[in-house]
């Protein structure tokens, strides 16, 4: 048996999404930018997909730009606005690298976070000035699962940097958080299909009316001249199906998966000596997305632990991997004040809509045995 507990990395495609895309890989192969019947068939699907995505994300269809994934959406948000407006970019220290490296490339600055992985609003306020053009604050963190106080962030931005555009990377939040409602305060919202049951290589950026945006990919002028390149029709249609399924089932999924996550985290905290749960102050997980279980096991190198877990059928992860595939110390944990050595003892077990009780049973057994084995080896 394999228990797949790496849904934050990617999650299996929803059957609805697979079914939705198949015709566009076969008979409905048209390029939606054409003028004939085959093209029109694809155009219809594209337009309907845009309506569905807009409904799921709480925006107008004309405010959706389809991209080649979450990273492109984040890059488009930051570089696209900066290209038009210049100015200073402000992020947070725990953004995904898609944002963090974009901020750095433009000489931007990042706001600190507290020990629980939540942006330090006082520090953010000190960074906000009239010359700030983009503020990028993720909705939920990919490693430790913390939900950021976007409404408070938006209030600060409107007051201290009124000309700035607020971007939120909602890639990890989408399966768990009502993005349409919570991200309504943001001007730009990025999502990635494969994190919520769509295929890899497709995503979207919501750009609310009036936000100036220069395309970062130039060409044939698709997406109202904001993102060129022939549409990935099959991917977009599948993403739309995944958005609909995700939004329809989200409340139930959160309820069911929270119970599984709590059983997993509580079980491991009880069975593994010196286990520490990240970003759950006093055991309170209300500030985290339901699918995230992030633990640290003192003295146990996650690189070794992940191999043992893999051998015993548990797919999990730790930190992020560099180009060579080596695990790097997490910038998120470092920003939270976790020492580099402790950061290398972390494991992220991330659950998804398909996670079962059996997955949790296996993980409870295998993780605690593997930690004991690695500790006993010394």
């Amino acid at each position, binding site marked *: 048996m394999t228990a797949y507990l790496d849904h934050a990395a990617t999650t299996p495609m929803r059957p609805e999404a697979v079914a939705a895309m198949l015709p566009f890989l076969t008979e409905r192969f048209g390029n939606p930018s054409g003028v004939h019947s085959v093209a029109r068939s694809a155009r219809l699907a594209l337009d309907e997909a845009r309506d569905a995505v807009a409904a799921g994300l709480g925006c107008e269809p004309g405010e959706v730009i389809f991209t080649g994934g979450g990273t492109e959406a984040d890059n488009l948000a930051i570089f696209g606005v900066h290209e038009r407006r210049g100015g200073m970019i402000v992020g947070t220290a725990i953004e995904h690298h898609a944002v963090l490296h974009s901020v750095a490339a433009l000489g931007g600055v990042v706001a600190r976070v507290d020990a629980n992985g939540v942006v330090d609003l006082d520090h953010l306020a000190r960074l906000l000035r009239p010359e700030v053009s983009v503020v990028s604050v993720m909705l939920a963190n990919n490693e430790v699962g913390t939900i950021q106080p976007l409404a408070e962030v938006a209030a600060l931005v409107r007051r201290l940097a009124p000309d700035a555009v607020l971007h939120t990377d909602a890639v990890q939040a989408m399966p768990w958080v009502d993005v349409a409602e919570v991200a309504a305060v943001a001007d730009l919202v990025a999502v990635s299909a494969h994190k919520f049951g769509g295929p890899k290589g497709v995503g979207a950026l919501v750009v609310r009316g009036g936000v100036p945006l220069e395309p970062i990919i130039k060409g044939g002028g698709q997406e109202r001249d904001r993102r060129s390149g022939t549409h990935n029709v099959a991917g977009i249609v599948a993403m739309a199906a995944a958005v609909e399924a995700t939004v329809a089932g989200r409340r139930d999924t959160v309820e069911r998966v929270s119970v599984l996550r709590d059983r997993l985290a509580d079980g491991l905290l009880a069975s593994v000596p010196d286990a520490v749960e990240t970003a759950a102050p006093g055991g309170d997980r209300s500030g985290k997305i339901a699918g995230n279980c992030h633990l640290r096991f003192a003295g146990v*190198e996650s*690189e*070794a632990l992940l*191999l*043992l877990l893999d051998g015993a059928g548990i797919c999990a992860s730790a930190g992020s*991997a*560099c*180009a*060579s*595939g*080596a*695990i*790097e110390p997490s910038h998120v944990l470092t920003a939270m004040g976790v020492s*580099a050595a402790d950061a290398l003892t972390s494991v992220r077990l991330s659950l998804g809509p398909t996670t079962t009780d059996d997955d949790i049973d296996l993980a409870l057994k295998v993780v605690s045995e593997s930690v004991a*084995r*690695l500790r006993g*080896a*010394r």
Partner: protein
Amino acid sequence: MRVLVAMSGGVDSSVAAALLRDSGHDVVGATMKLWGGESDSGCCSVADVDDARRVAQQLGLDHHVFNFTADFDAHVVDPYVEAHGAGLTPNPCIECNRHLKFDRFLERALDLGFDAIATGHHARVARSADGTWSLRRGADRAKDQSYVLHMLGQAALARTLLPVGELTKAEVRVRATELGLRTAAKPDSQDVCFITSTGGRTAFLADRLSLHAASVVDSSGEVVGSVDAVELVTVGQRRGMGGGRGERRYAVAVDVAARQVTIGGESDLMTDVVEVDGWQWCGEAPPPSSAVGVQTSAHGPVPIATLASSSVRLAEPIRRVAPGQSVVLYDGDQVLGGGIAT
């Protein structure tokens, strides 16, 4: 046996993995990410990791990457820089073997339940009738790497397989070609992995040390020249040491604190005693006054000497050994152990 093969992305470790697989072992490959900075093979040596992974895939083996950059910095790079700062001539590949491949990597393998590790080194591990393990030169004398493995003690030797040590380099390449491995024609790695061919040792050290100009004096103390960086001068070095008045001139002593390099002629360079610190023996320490072969560089000659507690006395004088270099002792083809020249 469950064997974890350290796959560098080179032809030797590729063939090592193949040979072990073909002899029926349960083999997994792993590549150590050691150096996080700039290198000739690209950032994080991604190209080498790719080669290792593709070879493992071709052989049907699982492959993992271990991030040991912090250990590599602490045990290899930082001491390398410090040693140069003290006017020594360190051998970082030996420290990497000592602290990374046959310590950190071995420990990781044992933690994960492997019975042994393997590498692509050209040397041989043998077990004698009494159960003790010995390290011997590789079958290809010209490619022999036993010198850089001299620190392996019984515990490490008992858990180490060196399958290509039985082959010549030519045979390794033939085997790799037969198997269609992408690394079959890959050139051998040269020099120190963390030093680029563009910047070289000078640029690497200049970024991490303050380098100091020094005067060059002859044996009478008379200043006869200068060097830009005393930290980069190695005992035995000719380049930059002047001469040209007939006799060749060599650095015979380097004193970083005094900012002084002493030079002399070939006769001043010769010595019949090499002082050695920190012997590590593969097995039992050889008895005092043993006659041993002494090798002081990776592929150098092996003159005969007599062992003392913290030195070796050569039968015939040899050129001085730069302090910091490893002195490895042999009994025929068998490595006895070694230490660092002081």
